[in-house]
């Protein structure tokens, strides 16, 4: 989910669906089969892999099918700090992105309403980061935040940062990178719900002598809740699984490794496929629990 020009929208009114199951089947079958073979089956394959045990032959990367449930306990014991860190970083980045995005989305969706051209320009600016390589824009931040960079040295000159402090490789820079990279995922859905906000409700609030803050809290926020809900999901999910920002060559260090980094290392470097699979499934399960909780909160099962 890199580009995600995603946004909430009202459920579209379908023109009376007809029942012609043969045509429907013809239209659906290729795509659905594709997803069954290359999305669902791999997830099942992950379940089998997660229960494997190292092969008796002893080759690295050779595993036999078994029901080694122990694998789950092993990875949790070994990698619980990474698991907690992932969810901690992702939560912090989601909150930061929400705080940055909401006023921005409000400005574009409400204040720029009477200026369609400016509104289009503003939206283009919001999605502009999607058009430059994810890896390069993260590396750009690494260089801007680096110890030799003017930012760190000027912060040190004004004593805002201790002379021996560094920004890159710290949890701060990882959360900073995650926040930056996923802001558009947050801004767009909130913008879409605020763009549709009927300002007469807000005016009614002030007519009834509510303070601007009360009106905002009791009218604007609840009406933009669908956008906030999908924005937080769209930020949190990719942030929790991301391993580029936290990687050593980018904004992180060994001490900031997230669950994604561990899965990558186990799968691609150590060839410990069962561990990588078990961790992937744990991540997936945690996210599914979260999503279903969210879906229930938002009161609709209709996600697509």
């Amino acid at each position, binding site marked *: 989910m890199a580009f995600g*020009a995603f946004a909430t929208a009202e459920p579209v009114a379908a023109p009376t669906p007809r029942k012609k199951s043969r045509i429907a089947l013809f239209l659906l079958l290729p795509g659905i089969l594709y997803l069954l073979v290359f999305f669902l089956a791999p997830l099942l394959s992950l379940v089998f892999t997660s229960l494997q045990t190292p092969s008796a032959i002893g080759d690295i990367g050779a595993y036999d099918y078994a029901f080694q449930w122990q694998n789950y306990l092993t990875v949790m014991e070994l990698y619980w700090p990474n698991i907690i860190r992932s969810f901690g970083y992702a939560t912090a980045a989601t909150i930061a992105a929400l705080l940055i995005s909401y006023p921005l989305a*409000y400005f574009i969706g409400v204040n720029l309403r009477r200026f369609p051209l400016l509104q289009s320009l503003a939206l283009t600016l919001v999605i502009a980061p999607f058009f430059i390589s994810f890896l390069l824009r993260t590396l750009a931040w690494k260089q801007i935040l680096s110890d030799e960079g003017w930012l760190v040295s000027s912060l040190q000159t004004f004593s805002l940062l201790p002379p021996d402090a560094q920004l890159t490789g710290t949890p701060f820079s990882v959360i900073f990178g995650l926040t930056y990279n996923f802001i558009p995922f947050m801004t767009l859905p909130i913008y879409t719900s605020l763009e549709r906000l009927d*300002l007469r409700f807000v005016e009614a609030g002030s007519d009834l002598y509510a303070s601007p803050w009360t009106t905002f809290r009791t009218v604007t926020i609840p009406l933009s809740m669908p956008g906030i809900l999908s924005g937080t999901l769209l930020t949190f999910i990719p942030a929790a699984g991301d391993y580029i920002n936290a990687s050593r060559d980018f904004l992180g260090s060994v001490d900031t490794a997230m669950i994604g980094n561990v899965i990558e290392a186990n799968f691609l470097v150590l060839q410990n496929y069962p561990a990588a699979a078990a961790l992937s499934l744990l991540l997936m399960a945690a996210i599914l629990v979260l999503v279903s909780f969210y879906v229930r909160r938002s009161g609709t099962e209709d996600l697509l």
Partner: protein
Amino acid sequence: MTLQGGAVLTDAAATTPAAPRRTFRLGAGRWGLAAYSVIAFIFLLIPIVYTIVFSFNDYRRTNITWRAFTLENWTQLCNAQGVCSAFANSIFVGVVATVIATALGTMIAIALVRYRFRFRASTTLLLFLPMATPEVVLGAGLAAQFLAAGVAKGLGTIIIAHVMFCISFVVVTVRARVASLDPALEEAGRDLYGSPNQVFWRITFPLLLPGIMAAALLSFALSFDDFIITTFNSGPAVTFPKYIYTAAARGIPAEANVIASIVFFAAIIIVVAAQVSSAARRKRQLRQG
């Protein structure tokens, strides 16, 4: 909660309700909000400007500190070893994956809006799940599958992976367009003795085209920039993001910045053109209606 894609890109203003007569006043807060937003835009653009500026850097081994201005990186793009082939691979994968994903996704989108069938709810769930799954899980799952099946990884497996995660985004984007289509237009086609084939290709398809184009652009952008799923399923094949990831340890050549800048400007031109054409279409519709 409805997740909707793509539409934002091209039809943003089309969904805007008519501006209310009474201007909404937030007093001084409005200017504060404007200033805040300008700062936020600058923040969002910093790494982009950085990347473009450093594409003109006369770098030696690593492109980290500014040395001098040069156009050489732009004129001799392929000097840096492997950059051009990685770029070509990304374009190839992006185009093939986009064509397949757009075709499959468009068919599903039409079926979902137009037909009632059993397993509709499970189909919707199957389409939603890939978008709610972290990339690292999608990548590892497919890689585990290829490993079990003994499939050799390369450009082919990258394309398979990219089609898989693009389909859902295409469905979401095209679905909105199908839903807004007036069925009376197709009925008129049938009344005029158009065969189902003629009705589809002469009426339905042209009307869906803006949505399909938006979906294809989104799909290409997703594919072109994907690193995580790609790296699990690429084997020895190198795409542009994979090139950058490997180069990050030893130093990115400025030629990579050039390619990223070219892609950036191309995308901006496409988005602006789409907005201008949709604005022109709206104006035409207003004049006619």
